[in-house]
């Protein structure tokens, strides 16, 4: 194989080659991102704990459950602990355009139910013992340069203070997570603080609990607990839907529709677009090279070599593009992971994603090079030489 000729053919048309490489790079990068999102969703679901059940209203996630349900559910055999999760939906006063989730929880049962959390700064005990204390994720603290002891003003949108002032929480601890199902861009504070504010008239907002997390005792079948809880509230006052954490996350993700299928569809469309773009380039290249190929055949080169030149050129263009896309992807992995941590804690370019990107580029290159090489291989040497014009 005349490798130098292959390389010169690629570099001989710098503008065309650059545009093709750029198109491949953009497409492969996009496919890589989509794949990272899809596999991130899978990882998030896979990392969900099997011993945690989530109880929400059977009507909708946006309908609160009565607080009294907690006591009743504690009587179900196999329920070891319960932690309330109440969506707060506030805005950080210093960054009203930004967003991060805040939840009111029960400090007594929260940390012990989520062993994937660990405190990296401050003290969980301080958080537990401080009524207006909060614990925030490490990425969130990094984003806003927060430190332990700092006050964080959060303006309420669902729960508003009657005097119009923002809620003020004091950071008592910062946590890290070792699981893609639990991200580091959240804030948690005492449910009791929220409740007391509502009861004392210091704030207004919905009365109840958004979601109860039930920790199932070791050796107990979560499905049995799940059925028992659902059955307990079958006749009201409000029916509940109990799901595993994985199922809850899956339902949350698909609230916007079948996201993985949508992403695969977009990825497939991008793949076809780039295939046609590269094929178009290679068909044009093949026609331009007919004369050269005829000359090479006359000199004694075989069809295999001349076909290899076209296929090699196509593969080389695509692989350079894929390499650029993978390089850009790896460079942007960390910022993208932080930017999407709230919605997609499992976002990452894993080895499978990178192999897929390289495989797609290789496949597009092979097929795009094969078609024009098939044409020139079918031509006799004299036919190829007659295309001189």
């Amino acid at each position: 194989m005349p490798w130098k000729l292959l390389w010169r053919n690629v570099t001989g048309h710098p503008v065309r080659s650059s545009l093709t490489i750029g198109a491949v790079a953009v497409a492969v990068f996009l496919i890589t991102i989509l794949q990272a999102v899809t596999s991130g969703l899978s990882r998030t679901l896979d990392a969900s704990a099997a011993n945690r059940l989530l109880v929400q209203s059977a009507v909708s996630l946006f309908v609160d459950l009565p607080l009294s349900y907690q006591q009743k559910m504690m009587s179900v055999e196999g329920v070891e602990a319960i932690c309330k999760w109440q969506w707060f939906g506030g805005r950080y006063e210093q960054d009203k355009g930004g967003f991060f989730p805040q939840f009111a929880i029960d400090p007594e049962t929260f940390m012990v139910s989520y062993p994937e959390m660990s405190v990296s700064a401050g003290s969980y005990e301080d958080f537990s013992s401080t009524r207006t204390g909060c614990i925030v994720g490490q990425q969130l603290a990094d984003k806003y340069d927060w430190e332990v002891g700092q006050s964080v003003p959060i303006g309420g949108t669902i729960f508003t203070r009657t005097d119009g002032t923002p809620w003020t929480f004091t950071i008592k601890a910062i946590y890290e997570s070792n699981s893609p199902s639990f991200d580091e861009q959240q804030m948690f504070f005492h449910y009791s603080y929220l409740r007391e504010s509502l009861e004392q008239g210091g704030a207004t907002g919905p009365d109840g609990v958004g979601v109860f997390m039930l920790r199932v005792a070791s050796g107990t079948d979560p499905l049995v607990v799940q059925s028992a809880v659902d059955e307990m509230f079958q006749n009201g006052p409000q029916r509940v839907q109990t799901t595993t954490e994985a199922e809850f996350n899956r339902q949350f993700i698909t609230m916007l529709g079948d996201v993985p299928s949508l992403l695969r569809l977009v990825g497939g469309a991008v793949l076809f677009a780039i295939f046609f773009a590269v094929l178009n380039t290679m068909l044009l290249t093949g026609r331009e090279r007919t004369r050269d190929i005829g000359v090479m055949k006359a000199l004694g080169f075989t069809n295999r070599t001349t076909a290899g030149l076209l296929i090699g050129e196509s593969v080389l263009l695509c692989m350079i593009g894929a390499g650029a896309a993978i390089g850009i992807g790896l460079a942007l992995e960390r910022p993208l992971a932080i930017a999407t941590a709230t919605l997609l804690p499992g976002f990452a370019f894993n080895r499978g994603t990178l192999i897929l990107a390289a495989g797609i580029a290789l496949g597009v290159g092979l097929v795009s090079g094969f078609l024009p090489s098939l044409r020139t291989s079918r031509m006799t040497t004299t036919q190829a030489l007659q295309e001189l014009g």
Partner: protein
Amino acid sequence: MQAAINLRSVTKSYSRGGETLRVLDELDLEIDGSTFYALMGPSGSGKTTLLNLVGGLDQSNSGIVQVGGEDLNELNGSELAQWRAENVGFIFQGFNLLPVLTARENVELPLLLAPLSKRQRREQAERALDLVGLSDRMNHKPRELSGGQEQRVAIARAIATDPKIILADEPTGDLDRDTADTVLELLQRLNRELQKTILMVTHDPQAASYAAKTIHLDKGKLGRIDDNHAPAGN
């Protein structure tokens, strides 16, 4: 003198628009080795077709095409390719250099098919370029050369593998008179000094006068063979 090329009852037909066109018709021809031949005839007389058959670029429908003792009709596609690489050098009217390669790289191209080291290929290409007087242009790309220089690079490429036979299809067709004379003198030198058998298609009687003999084709048949007693021209 031993015949280098032997054609016996060679017929070549093409199908065009549903009709069969017989380009060579029961042609018999014997070409001596180490001789410079010009091949002349009106358009459509079968000159280029004959050159293609002798060069193993195409195969006849019937008859025998024997070149250097090898019956080319007996060889399959890849055998023909290998035979061409080892036995024939081609010179085309349009030069047909690969535009992305330098002069030396173009000359090295057929040497990639020979069992030579990189250094040997380089030396052999440089010798061939030296022979055609282009030592100082070997790192130039075709677009940086004049027409005459391009054709001399093409000649260097044709002789790089040291083939016994050189086939030239209108090698001076795209050149002005003076440049054409330079190229023809070079071909004459290759014949005289290196004993190459040269078969050159041309429409130009002055170009043909550089050859030792002129073969005249007419309607696919051999007309006559002239002995050019003054092959040095004029």
